[in-house]
């Protein structure tokens, strides 16, 4: 058992010697980032309904159904108003044929005007939400993989939360930007028929909106915002991208991101550019304008470039998020814990230091108080720590700062079992028993009490393991391992040593 432990521990001290993994260090020890994101699934439902209402509008136009209005309301319903029996019949047919998923909430006739309210059934809504979360997880995993983090831990927590642990990440700002970006790339035309200044004063023409271009001056750190009046209609999105790469502009020596559309995207892009020569096309990412160049001619190659005063890193990260795709819904950071690597190494140093000092005090004390038997207890203590380490490596558990505290606490508590036994042996010796009999009686009487006393600590540790997060879980792990290991070393190991000394060595006097 001891040999097995040492084998498990070896890779920690000398990586590469053994195929087995070494002890994982928690984020608080090696630095890194812990994030809990909430996928705003309501937004995914909204955008689905928005898309459906656009489709119905297009279909009605195509089928020559004349309608008064169609709009999506804030409480996720689609309201269609139309007149005339012929139109109503046609709409019914259209809904039955192509929109079977939609549920008709109410139909109301007012004179010859029909108001129809449609929505999505709960089951469908739940499915959209789940898909959005799953897809967000996949997209984020993709981005992180491309960013290059060793052993990230990304998983869904609860229904719509995503837990992300990035150990050892140094540039946390970049990692966070990369993860949190929705990365919805849209191509929209500028509204050049209306006055921007009037719009800025509040008279935004219907069908248009004001979006900003934000530039940061690298020298002064000041941000410059430029407003644009942009048409709301999205002509093309990043969903039609095939690839995105960083290129360096040969003239200005500035990095930009070149994007390549897939077949369909290339066709649409060619049509847009062909129809709108000499107009300005805004490239919008997450509602921020990156550039709004004038279309010089029809672009047929299916390629475009996104410029915008990028640093190489920014361009690199933008290319990653564009390649990995947009998040189906925006995410919100609910919890963030970032530990710098310097703090982590300080924690390790201080943790080990207190472990050494505390351990040395205990070892010394036992040696002075119980002499020879104290030495036996100290040997047991040493192996106790070896066993904890092996347990950590073997179970692939994570060592955190509270985990180190757990080990330190265990060192103090582990000798308890031996103290109990030794005190019992002393009592028995005082009653005039031989060393052999005293040792036997001491172990026999103390065993049950030791077992029971440790059960309570174990109960607390197990509950902590169940409910704890991150660092606390690490504490629970080392504490439980420590309790179990101390039972083993105190009850079995020290007893075998005593047995060996008393029977094989025929020791007559007990140094205790």
């Amino acid at each position: 058992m001891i040999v097995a432990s040492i084998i498990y521990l070896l890779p920690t001290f000398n990586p590469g010697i053994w195929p087995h993994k070494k002890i994982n260090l928690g984020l608080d020890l090696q630095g890194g980032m812990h994030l809990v994101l909430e996928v705003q699934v309501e937004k995914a439902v909204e955008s689905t309904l928005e898309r459906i209402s656009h489709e119905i509008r297009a279909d009605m136009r195509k089928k020559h159904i004349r309608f008064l209005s169609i709009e999506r309301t804030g409480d996720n319903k689609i309201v269609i108003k139309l007149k005339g029996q012929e139109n109503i019949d046609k709409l019914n047919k259209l809904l039955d044929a192509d929109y079977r998923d939609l549920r008709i909430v109410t139909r109301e006739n007012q004179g010859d005007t029909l108001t129809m309210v449609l929505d999505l059934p709960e089951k469908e809504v739940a499915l959209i939400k789940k898909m959005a979360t799953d897809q967000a997880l996949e997209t984020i995993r993709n981005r992180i993989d491309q960013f290059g983090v060793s052993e990230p831990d990304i998983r869904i927590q609860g229904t719509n939360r995503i837990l992300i642990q990035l150990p050892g990440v140094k540039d946390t700002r970049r990692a966070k930007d990369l993860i949190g970006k929705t990365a919805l790339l849209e191509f929209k035309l500028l509204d050049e028929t209306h006055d921007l200044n009037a719009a800025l004063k509040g008279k935004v023409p219907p069908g248009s909106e004001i979006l900003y271009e934000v530039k940061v001056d690298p020298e002064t750190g000041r941000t410059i915002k430029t407003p644009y009046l942009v048409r709301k209609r999205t002509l093309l999105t990043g969903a039609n991208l095939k690839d995105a790469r960083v290129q360096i502009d040969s003239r200005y020596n500035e990095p930009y991101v070149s994007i390549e559309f897939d077949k369909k995207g290339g066709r649409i892009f060619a049509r847009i550019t062909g129809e709108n020569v000499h107009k300005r096309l805004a490239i919008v990412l997450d509602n921020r304008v990156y550039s709004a160049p004038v279309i010089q001619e029809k672009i047929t190659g299916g390629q475009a470039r996104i410029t915008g005063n990028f640093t190489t890193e920014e361009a690199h990260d933008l290319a990653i998020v564009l390649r990995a795709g947009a998040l189906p819904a925006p995410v919100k950071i609910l919890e963030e814990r970032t530990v710098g690597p310097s703090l982590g190494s300080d924690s390790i140093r201080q943790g080990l230091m207190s472990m050494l000092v505390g351990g040395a005090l205990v070892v010394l004390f036992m040696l002075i108080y119980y002499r020879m038997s104290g030495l036996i207890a100290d040997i047991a203590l040493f192996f106790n720590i070896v066993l904890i380490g092996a347990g950590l490596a073997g179970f692939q558990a994570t060592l955190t700062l509270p985990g180190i505290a757990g080990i330190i606490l265990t060192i103090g508590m582990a000798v308890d079992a031996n103290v109990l036994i030794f005190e019992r042996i002393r009592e028995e010796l005082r009653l005039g028993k031989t060393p052999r009999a005293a040792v036997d009686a001491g172990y026999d009487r103390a065993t049950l009490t030791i077992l029971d006393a440790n059960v309570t600590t174990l109960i607390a540790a197990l509950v902590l393991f169940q409910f704890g997060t991150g660092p606390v879980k690490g504490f629970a792990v080392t504490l439980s391992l420590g309790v179990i290991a101390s039972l083993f070393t105190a009850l079995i190991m020290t007893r075998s040593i005593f047995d060996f000394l008393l029977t094989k060595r025929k020791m007559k006097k007990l140094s205790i």
Partner: protein
Amino acid sequence: MEIIKPDTHIDFSGKRKIAFSISGLMILISIASLIFHGGPKYGIDFAGGTLVQIKFHGPVKIPDIKKGFKSMGITSVTVQVFGDPKDNEYLVRTDKSGITNEGFSDKIKRAVTAATGQEAQIRRVEMVGPQVGKDLQEKALFAIFYSLLFITIYISGRFEYKWMLSGVMAAALMGAVYALSLFTESIAILIGAALLVTLVLFWFLELKYAMGAIVALIHDVTITVGLFSLFNKEFTLPIIAALLTIIGYSLNDTIIVFDRIRENLRRQHKSSFDTIINNSINQTLSRTILTSGTTLFTIIALFVLGGGIIHDFAFALLVGVVVGTYSSIYVASPILLAWQGKTHKK
């Protein structure tokens, strides 16, 4: 070597009135402090908010750090020295959350460097949103609740080997809690109710050892929480972990004393209960002090050398171990005696 001589005879139970008054006073102070501070002071784990740990290259003034944050529009901050003052390291806390977006650390770094005139290094950023804070609160309370539940079940069966009774206990406790959970969602109330039900059940089922143990346990946790409140320290997840560990540790001590009492009861029929309890405590005194001593050695090492992050955690353990040792001698056993005295008079 021996610290406690084998013929030591300290009259512990005779001093129980003094002990009860000390304990009573401590608990009173704890509760008063909690009321005065308006309940426990929650760290950002539970209350939500943002915490930034900043290390400066040279000495700075706290108002300057505040000024730096103010320039970013974060006004309500508390700044405290972290660890050794000569390390120039500070912990800044605000109850605002959701402010750590895009380039937050960089901006903070620039702002405080400008305000203090010393190069700043952002060592740690923790942000907990209000929702997560609430979730973590719930999780912590659940952890406390379940460990209390399991430990109650364990000790109710453990001392007198009445496991059947323990099963009844468990069923009654869970039934009561379930019934109550239909009316209230507050887990804090559930924990209080569960404790009350436990005490009443112990009383009627005459589980006196279990009663002594659980009272000692409540005593320890109350005083630790009270001291935390008195020193105006924050409750965080690791502190809850420390509290649960204290529960385990305190029981550990109590179990050892109680086991001795029961062993002596079997052997010494003729002695009075008073004497037996005193003998038992004296016999186990050596081990009680030794174990607490070694545990304290290591915790003090952690407290002094472990660094700022683990400091409060070590403090909670320190208090808990001292109080836990005291209570197993001066609270748990005297309660046993008081109970016995009552039933004998009948």
